[in-house]
C-alpha cells in the first residue's frame, strides 16, 4: 500500500469543555467506534475520515479531556500515557490536534505549550471562533501561529464546514517521520508558573483581548447559583424531567409494547407449536421485549441529561449539591451518575468514571441501584393499582403519593448507605473539590442526537447480548422439566424455576411472600420488571405485557393481604435482583468483590425492610 494511503493516526486533545467532542463528531460523523482502553474502563472513541484533496485516510482518536499532562483522574492519565506511547496496544499518534476554546485561551493555552514541548507534530484548532468573534474577543491568529511556532486554524465544531480549514492544513502538511519514544517529567511549580507567564506573553503579543462577561450571563449565574433560588430551580428542573420521562414516554412505550406483542403473536402462529416456538416467543421476544419497553423512558431521560450537560448547567448542579452530598461523604460529582440511575443503574454506573477519587467512585457505584430505576415502575404500578385506592389527599392523589414515597425511600436509603460506607469500608481522607464551571451555551442538536444514538446503541447491545442470554436460561428453567401428564396448575410450578420458588418460599415466608411471589422473583433476577410477567404466568394467565397487569390487578388484590403487598413494595425499594447491574459493576471495578458485596447488602436490606414492613403492617391491620 502506498504510504499516502495508509491511514494517518491523529489524536484529538483538549481541556474539558473546549468543544472537543463536537469537533470529533463534525470530523467523523457516525463513523465512530466506542470501546474501552485495554484493562481500564475509560471509554476509547475512535473515528475515521478521508481528506478532501488527496484521498488520505485519517484515524482520529478522541482522547479524554485533560487540563494537564500531570494527571488527577484516570481519564487524564490515559491521555498522557497515550501521547507518550506508554499505553499497551496503542500506537502513539503521528500528529496531535489540540482543541483550544477561543473564548477561554488563558485556560487552554498552557496545555498547548505542554503538548508542543512533547515534540509530537501539533496543530492548534481554535474552536468556537465564531462565538469568540460574536462576543467581542480579539486575537491576531497569524501572530499567535508565529509565537507558538505551530499551525493554528479556526474551527466551528457546531457548523457545517466549520472543520474545513483544519482539513486543508492537515492535507498540506507532509506526513511526519516516525520518532523515538518521548521523555516527559512533571514540571516543577516554578516551571508551571513560567509556562503560565509565557502563555500570557504570547496572548498579549497576539493582541488577545477578552470582553467583560455579558450582564445577562452574570445575572443568570447570580440566580442559578443563588444559595436559595439555585436549589429551588434545580428541584423544579428535576421534577419537570421526571414528569416528562413518565408522561412523554407513555405513548411510545405502548407502541413498542404492542409491536412486540404483535410480533410474538405472529411468530407464535407462524411456527409449529413446540419447544422452539415457546423459546422464541416466551423466551426471546417476551424477555427482551420486556426490557425494550423502557427504551423511550431511557431515551427521554438521556435527552435531558445531554441537554443539561451541553448547556453548562450540570457542573453547576454538582456545585449546588456538593454540600448535601458531602454530608454523607460523597462528592457533588456523584450527582450526574445518580441522576442517570433513575433511568437505569447501568448507564449511571458507567458515568461514575468522571469521579476522580476511587473510594468516592465505589461509594457512588454501590448506591446507584437504590435510585428507583424505570424497571421497578411496572412492579410498583401493579401493586399500587391493586391495593392503594385512587382517592384524593388534599391536592394530591394517594396513589401518586405512595409512588413518590417509594422514590423518596430509595434516596434516603442511598444516603444512609453512603454515610455508612464512608464511615467504614470506604473510609477516606478529605477529597478536594476543584471544578470548572463552563460558560453557558445553547445546546447543539446534532451533538445531542449523536449522543443519544450512542446511548441507544449501548442499550441495544446490552439487550441483544447479556439480557437475551439470561432470558433464554430463565426460559429453560421455567419450562423444564415439563409437568407430568394429568398434573394440575400452571406448568411453571413443575419446572426448575418452580422448584426454586418452592424452596425460596421457606426463605420468604417470614416476610409474607407466598410461593407465587417467591417464584416470580427468580425470573425477576434478569430484569426486575420481568417479575410482573412471571406473576402473570404463575397465576396462569395467557396474555402478555400490559394485559397481564390489567388482569393481574383484581387477581392479586383478592389473593394477597395488604401486609404482603406493602412488604413486596418495601422489598422492591432495595430489590437486589438485577444481573445486568451486577455484571456492569464487575466490569467497572474489575473484580467480583464489589458486585458480590452489592448483591449481599441489597438482599439484606430488602429482607430487613420487607420483614419490618410485613410485621408492622400485620400487627396494625390485624
Amino acid at each position: 500500500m502506498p504510504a499516502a494511503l495508509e491511514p494517518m493516526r491523529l489524536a484529538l486533545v483538549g481541556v474539558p469543555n473546549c468543544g472537543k467532542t463536537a469537533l470529533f463528531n463534525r470530523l467523523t460523523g457516525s463513523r465512530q467506534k466506542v470501546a474501552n482502553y485495554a484493562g481500564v474502563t475509560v471509554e476509547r472513541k475512535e473515528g475515521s475520515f478521508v481528506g478532501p484533496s488527496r484521498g488520505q485516510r485519517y484515524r482520529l482518536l478522541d482522547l479524554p479531556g485533560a487540563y494537564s499532562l500531570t494527571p488527577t483522574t484516570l481519564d487524564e492519565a490515559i491521555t498522557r500515557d497515550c501521547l507518550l506511547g506508554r499505553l499497551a496496544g496503542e500506537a502513539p499518534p503521528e500528529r496531535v490536534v489540540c482543541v483550544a476554546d477561543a473564548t477561554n485561551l488563558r485556560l487552554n493555552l498552557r496545555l498547548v505549550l505542554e503538548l508542543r514541548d512533547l515534540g509530537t507534530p501539533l496543530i492548534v484548532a481554535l474552536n468556537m471562533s465564531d462565538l469568540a468573534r460574536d462576543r467581542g474577543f480579539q486575537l491576531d491568529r497569524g501572530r499567535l501561529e508565529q509565537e507558538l511556532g505551530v499551525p493554528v486554524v479556526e474551527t466551528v465544531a457546531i457548523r457545517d464546514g466549520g472543520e474545513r480549514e483544519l482539513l486543508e492544513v492537515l492535507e498540506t502538511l507532509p506526513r511526519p517521520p516516525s520518532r523515538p519514544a518521548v521523555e516527559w517529567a512533571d514540571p516543577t511549580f516554578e516551571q508551571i508558573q513560567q509556562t503560565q507567564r509565557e502563555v500570557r506573553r504570547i496572548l498579549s503579543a497576539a493582541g488577545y483581548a477578552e470582553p467583560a462577561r455579558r450582564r445577562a450571563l452574570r445575572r443568570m449565574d447570580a440566580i442559578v447559583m443563588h444559595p436559595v433560588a439555585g436549589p429551588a430551580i434545580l428541584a423544579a428542573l428535576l421534577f419537570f424531567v421526571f414528569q416528562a420521562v413518565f408522561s412523554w414516554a407513555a405513548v411510545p412505550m405502548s407502541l413498542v409494547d404492542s409491536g412486540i406483542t404483535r410480533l410474538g403473536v405472529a411468530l407464535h402462529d407462524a411456527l409449529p407449536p413446540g419447544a422452539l416456538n415457546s423459546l422464541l416467543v416466551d423466551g426471546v421476544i417476551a424477555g427482551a421485549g420486556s426490557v425494550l419497553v423502557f427504551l423511550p423512558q431511557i431515551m427521554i431521560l438521556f435527552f435531558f441529561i445531554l441537554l443539561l450537560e451541553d448547556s453548562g448547567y450540570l457542573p453547576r448542579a454538582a456545585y449546588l449539591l456538593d454540600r448535601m452530598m458531602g454530608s454523607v461523604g460523597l462528592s457533588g460529582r456523584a450527582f450526574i451518575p445518580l441522576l442517570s440511575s433513575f433511568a437505569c443503574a447501568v448507564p449511571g454506573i458507567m458515568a461514575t468514571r468522571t469521579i476522580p477519587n476511587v473510594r468516592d467512585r465505589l461509594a457512588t457505584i454501590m448506591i446507584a441501584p437504590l435510585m428507583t430505576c424505570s424497571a421497578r415502575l411496572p412492579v410498583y404500578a401493579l401493586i399500587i393499582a391493586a391495593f392503594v385506592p385512587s382517592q384524593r389527599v388534599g391536592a394530591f392523589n394517594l396513589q401518586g403519593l405512595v409512588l413518590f414515597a417509594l422514590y423518596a425511600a430509595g434516596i434516603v436509603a442511598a444516603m444512609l448507605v453512603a454515610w455508612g460506607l464512608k464511615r467504614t469500608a470506604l473510609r477516606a481522607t478529605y477529597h478536594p473539590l476543584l471544578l470548572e464551571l463552563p460558560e453557558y451555551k445553547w445546546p447543539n442538536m446534532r451533538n445531542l442526537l449523536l449522543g443519544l444514538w450512542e446511548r441507544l446503541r449501548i442499550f441495544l447491545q446490552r439487550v441483544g447480548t447479556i439480557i437475551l442470554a439470561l432470558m433464554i436460561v430463565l426460559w429453560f428453567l421455567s419450562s423444564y422439566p415439563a409437568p407430568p401428564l394429568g398434573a394440575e396448575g400452571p406448568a411453571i410450578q413443575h419446572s426448575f424455576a418452580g422448584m426454586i420458588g418452592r424452596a425460596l418460599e421457606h426463605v420468604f415466608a417470614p416476610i409474607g411472600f407466598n410461593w407465587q411471589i417467591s417464584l416470580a422473583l427468580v425470573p425477576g433476577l434478569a430484569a426486575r420488571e420481568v417479575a410482573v410477567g412471571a406473576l402473570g404466568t404463575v397465576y396462569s394467565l395467557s396474555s402478555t405485557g400490559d394485559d397481564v397487569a390489567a388482569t393481574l390487578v383484581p387477581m392479586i388484590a383478592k389473593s394477597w393481604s395488604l401486609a404482603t403487598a406493602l412488604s413486596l413494595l418495601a422489598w422492591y425499594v432495595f430489590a437486589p435482583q438485577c444481573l445486568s447491574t451486577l455484571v456492569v459493576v464487575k466490569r467497572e471495578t474489575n473484580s467480583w468483590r464489589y458486585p458480590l458485596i452489592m448483591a449481599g447488602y441489597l438482599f439484606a436490606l430488602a429482607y430487613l425492610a420487607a420483614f419490618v414492613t410485613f410485621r408492622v403492617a400485620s400487627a396494625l391491620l390485624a
Partner: protein
Amino acid sequence: MSSVTLSSLRKGERGTVQAVRDDPQTLGDETRSTVSRRLLELGFIPGEALEVVAESWPGGDPMAVRLGNTLFALRRREAGSVLVSVEGR
C-alpha cells in the same frame, strides 16, 4: 492592602492572586497531583484578578470564584491555599 487567603473572601469581594501555598493534598488517589499543582495549572498565578461570585448556604461552602474569564467551584479548604491581596482591607 494586605494579604489574606482566598477562603476568607465573601461573595462579591475581589482580589489579586499573590501566591499559591504548598498544599500536599492530592486530588485523586489514582494519581499523585496535588491541589497546589492543579491550582497553578488552572491559572491561579501571581497577578491574576479574581472575584468570589457565589457561595453556598449555610456556611459559604463551596464557593464559586471567577478567575480571569473562567469560573471555578472550590471549597474553602482548597481556597485556603491561595494567597490574595484585597483592596480596602
